[in-house]
């Protein structure tokens, strides 16, 4: 507050010849020419002297436009924070993707976080027993949105070679984005799964898990939150994924 007040008292002089108020700078859209031609640089850089079609081409070659959603999805998909969470055999192979041969740090996913609050990717590495399933679900619930889950190996996708009373497939109690087959999958296979997830997040960031699983309307209603603000507030309280695509 103080800083902006001080600034508006002394408006910065622009090199374009006119004095620009801070308030007008916020609302107007800068034209390509203004983007390229800094005031101090006028007359010095060759780009500042371009006109017409040359200027258009110059701008198209150098300036990339995108939507904010796409930029955010790009950033998110290149910096997953997996949770340090191992269950069984697959956990050993999950550790291998951090090791030197299949170096997951090449893609920016090497920061494993021990706390689910700091993680956004849950790699279910191993067999989930019935005793463990509520804990896995709680860890998944503790992770902040947006979050993704990879079911690694046959056991937590389909109960694998065991297929008996003790195990439960992960799809029964939590949403899973990518299933990686194998018993256990090679580290390369897990890498492939993670990169598939990256592509999914980049290409279709609106596809949250509620849409994929047909789970619209199953949001948990926090008492008191939804009464005043209606459906949109309920949606937010339930914790939507990457973005609201239904326009609620």
């Amino acid at each position, binding site marked *: 507050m103080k800083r902006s007040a001080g600034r508006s008292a002394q408006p910065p002089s622009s090199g374009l010849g006119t004095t620009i108020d801070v308030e007008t700078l916020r609302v107007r859209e800068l034209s390509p020419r203004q983007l390229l031609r800094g005031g101090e640089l006028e007359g010095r850089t060759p780009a500042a002297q371009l006109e017409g079609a040359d200027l258009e081409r110059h701008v198209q070659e150098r300036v990339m436009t995108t939507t904010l959603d796409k930029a955010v999805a790009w950033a998110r998909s290149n910096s997953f924070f997996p949770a*340090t*969470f*191992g*269950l*069984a*055999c697959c*956990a*050993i*192979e999950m*550790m*291998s993707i*951090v*090791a*030197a*041969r299949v170096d997951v740090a090449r893609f920016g996913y090497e920061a494993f976080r*021990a706390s*689910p609050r700091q993680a956004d990717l849950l790699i279910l590495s*191993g*067999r989930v*027993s019935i*005793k*463990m399933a509520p*804990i896995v679900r709680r*860890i998944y619930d503790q992770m902040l949105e947006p979050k993704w889950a990879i079911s690694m190996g046959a056991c937590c996708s389909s109960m694998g*070679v*065991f297929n*008996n*009373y*003790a*195990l439960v497939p992960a799809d029964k109690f939590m949403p899973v984005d990518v299933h990686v087959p194998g*018993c*256990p999958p*090679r580290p390369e296979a897990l890498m492939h799964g993670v990169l598939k997830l990256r592509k999914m997040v980049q290409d279709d960031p609106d596809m949250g898990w509620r849409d994929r699983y047909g789970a619209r309307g199953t949001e948990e209603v926090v008492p008191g939150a939804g009464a005043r603000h209606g459906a949109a507030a309920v949606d937010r309280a339930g914790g939507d994924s990457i973005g609201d695509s239904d326009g609620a």
Partner: protein
Amino acid sequence: MSEYRRREQSITLSPVEEQVGSGADGPGGGTHELLTLNFGPHHPATHGVLRLLVTLQGETVHDIKPIVGYVHTGIEKTAEDKSYWKVIPVIERMDYLAYHFNAMAFCGAVETLLEVEVPRRAQYLRVIQLELNRIMSHLVWLGTSALDLGAISMFWYCFREREKILDLFEMSTGARMHTRYFQVGGVAEDIPPGFAEKLRGFLKEMPERLDQYGALLNRNEIVLQRLRGTGMLDVQTLLALGVTGPLLRAAGNAWDLRKADPRGSYDDFDFKIPVGTVGDNYDRFACRLREMYESVKIAGQALEGLPEGPHITADRKVALPPRHELATSMEALIHHFKLVTEGFRPPPGEVYFPVESPRGELGCFVVSDGSSKPARVHMRDPSFVNLQAFSQMAEGGYIADLIATLAMLDPILGGIDR
């Protein structure tokens, strides 16, 4: 509500006020607050999904209650539902860092039931795989334990060598983990051309690498401070608790089934059993590090002295006939069909077959009722037995030492819960 659920819910997690000692040992008049800390099942230092209820008095560990069963997979029950040779894949997934040892214990038990003679070449091939598996298991232990102690670079060095062992496994067996290489009566395949050269190269390189690990850790002041004199337990207590493996050897008892009860031609090889002196965490660490040198020696001897001959028994009632015989021999076709559809039927009886796994005595108890499926398969898993010594090791020490003790205990939860 089941009895188990009732017991589980009866565990209180709230802090308890308790009168500890007399009024002399504290400014607060002798009343200390004990803090009950829930540790796991999701915690990076538990090496799996072990849950510990730790009661702390300040920073001192007052009481530990391990709670297991979070990866209970029902493998023993599933094994009763499969014919003998189809049990091997599920058995391998118990102690998932020692898969060859699981298969060895089970196959050995069934071979004893069937009284099948395992060819000498198969025994030597098994020894090569077992000792490579032991090195691999110890490497994972060393990497993750060093990670717990704050030495992060060890993890990358250990996993670099582990990948080389897994390459060898992939070459000889076709898979990195859970290879199903061990069969009743021998091994699935002979080693491929080029394997011996590659293994020789690895065995030549590995001692140098182990020297480097030792140089990194043995004079590291932080590691020494964390390991020396912590988690100490004497031989008598360890024996009373049934502890085996490197934990027992670190306390000075040279009990190793490879020497004490050599099965599978282990008496052909010349190797030493590393033994500790006081039984603290440092001795456990040093014992396992020395064991890797010895395993390199055993694998080298087995490779150089590899006898000629078949890699699996010629008994067609037990082992599958070679593929080429199926095209020409009617008997081979019948044997193949019978083995694949029904399997063999061992005579009624019961057998206990122990092997020395990386964590101690891994025994398989098989009961046969004369049918083609085992009536009971039970594993004496060393991690499970060793875990009961954990509370005695860590009680009275600091909570930081609890992490180091757990790391040096090296429990594998897949083996504990099965």
